[in-house]
């Protein structure tokens, strides 16, 4: 098996680090895969502008900001992805006529940005105490020129590939919530990617649980 530039095996995720409650907003979290880092803040349930008001549920507003340059089409697409992924998970019916604002800011870009953004958003929503019926974890992979599946690719590994896939899964049933695939691939390859990413997502859920446990342990030392 050909080794990767950072000596990872093809199905290893870069080191994950999660920090929560780092900003003064209601909820905030940063999530990183190695040198890819996204910070996300959540505000709400808060007052909503009249024209965005929904009588039966909360309005979910998503803003994605790139590291370099002004927000463009790609960021709008990411906003759409985040909103549609989380709309089904957040129990927005519990807070009608309010707004939940999610702001996601790229801090370091070394590939797999959208996966990191989804994971950061999950952690920030947990931190803000927004009611959710499930949580989401996402991971990317590429199929390289020599038909190898590389999990969690870096920016360099994302160049010159046959295809690029991002999957987001929920925790309870580990079923697919969102997927995006670019490039040419066979259905066998796709299902291989799916399997590998699904396994990786459960590893990410473990990291998320660990982060929440650590924070609670710090806060509730009385009980521990």
């Amino acid at each position: 098996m050909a080794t990767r530039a950072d000596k990872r095996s093809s199905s290893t995720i870069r080191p994950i680090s999660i920090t929560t409650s780092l900003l003064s907003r209601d909820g905030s979290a940063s999530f990183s895969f190695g040198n890819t880092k996204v910070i996300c803040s959540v505000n709400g349930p808060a007052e909503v502008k009249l024209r965005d008001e929904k009588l039966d549920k909360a309005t979910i507003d998503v803003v994605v900001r790139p590291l370099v340059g002004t927000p463009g089409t790609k960021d709008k697409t990411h906003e759409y992805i985040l909103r549609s992924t989380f709309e089904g998970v957040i129990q927005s019916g519990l807070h009608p006529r309010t707004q939940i604002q999610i702001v996601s800011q790229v801090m370091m870009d070394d590939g797999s940005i959208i996966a990191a953004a989804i994971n950061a958003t999950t952690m920030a929503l947990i931190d803000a105490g927004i009611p959710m019926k499930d949580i989401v974890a996402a991971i990317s992979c590429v199929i390289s020129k020599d038909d190898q599946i590389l999990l969690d690719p870096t920016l360099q590994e994302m160049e010159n590939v046959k295809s690029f896939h991002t999957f987001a899964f929920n925790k309870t049933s580990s079923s697919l919530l969102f997927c995006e695939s670019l490039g040419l691939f066979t259905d066998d390859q796709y299902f291989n990617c799916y399997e590998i990413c699904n396994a990786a997502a459960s590893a990410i859920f473990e990291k998320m649980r660990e982060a929440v446990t650590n924070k609670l342990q710090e806060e509730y030392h009385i009980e521990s």
Partner: protein
Amino acid sequence: MVKEFESSINEKDFILQGIKEGLRLDNRDKYDFRQIGITFGPDYGRSEVTLGNTRVLAKVSCEVTRPYQDRPAEGMITLNTELSPMAFPSVEPGRPSEEEILVSRILEKAIKRSRSIDTEGLCIVANEKVWSIRVDMHFLDHDGNIIDAACIAAISALAHFRRPDITVIGEEVTIHSIEQRNPVPLSIHHMPICVTFAFFENGEYVVVDPTLQEEQIRQGDMTMTLNVHKEICALSKAGGTPLKMETIINCSQIATTRAKWITEQIQAALDAEKSKK
């Protein structure tokens, strides 16, 4: 957009009373800055600055472009200071607020107009190709005085930045990747530092580096941009309470010592980063 409510009368009165007695909530002296934290990397030209709870990220990037026709032998510097709802919940993306314009104007004057970066050194082939340097500033958390924090972030990121090396043979330009050849730092003439003052009770009371709650009750503000050589690069006072001559002179003296202190902090952070590599 999320509406942010102002503090209560009780809080405003209390903070004002404190300022009159020379006391601040964070036990600072009226002329003291909050603690500054500067972290660089992992890539060149990335700097994250905290000033108390205020937090700013600056990222410098570059590309080769065609120069302006009236300045054929000069590179370009662009600053992007779009406010994001992460720090300002009341901001609507895509619609610049008054505050945003004010912030970008002051930073533009502080960094670009003060000629702190040698733009002539960014020329590759006159009339044809120059480097365009872009500084993106992201406001992550706002607890007052974003201008000073953003200025520290921008100038430290510029000082940390390295652009790819180039070779010019006639009209032929080769850009060497970072792996091929050591990248080149920008040539920085001087480091402009912003020092912001807030005024209360018709200019009778002054504090440096106001917090958000102090900003809410200030009657006027002034930002001085100066460098370690005690040169004033810019002075911005957008309305507010009229100030006496003596106040401004007094402020400029305070600003000199603060600018020196901040420059030392940036330098120390840069040195620490260099020794790490």
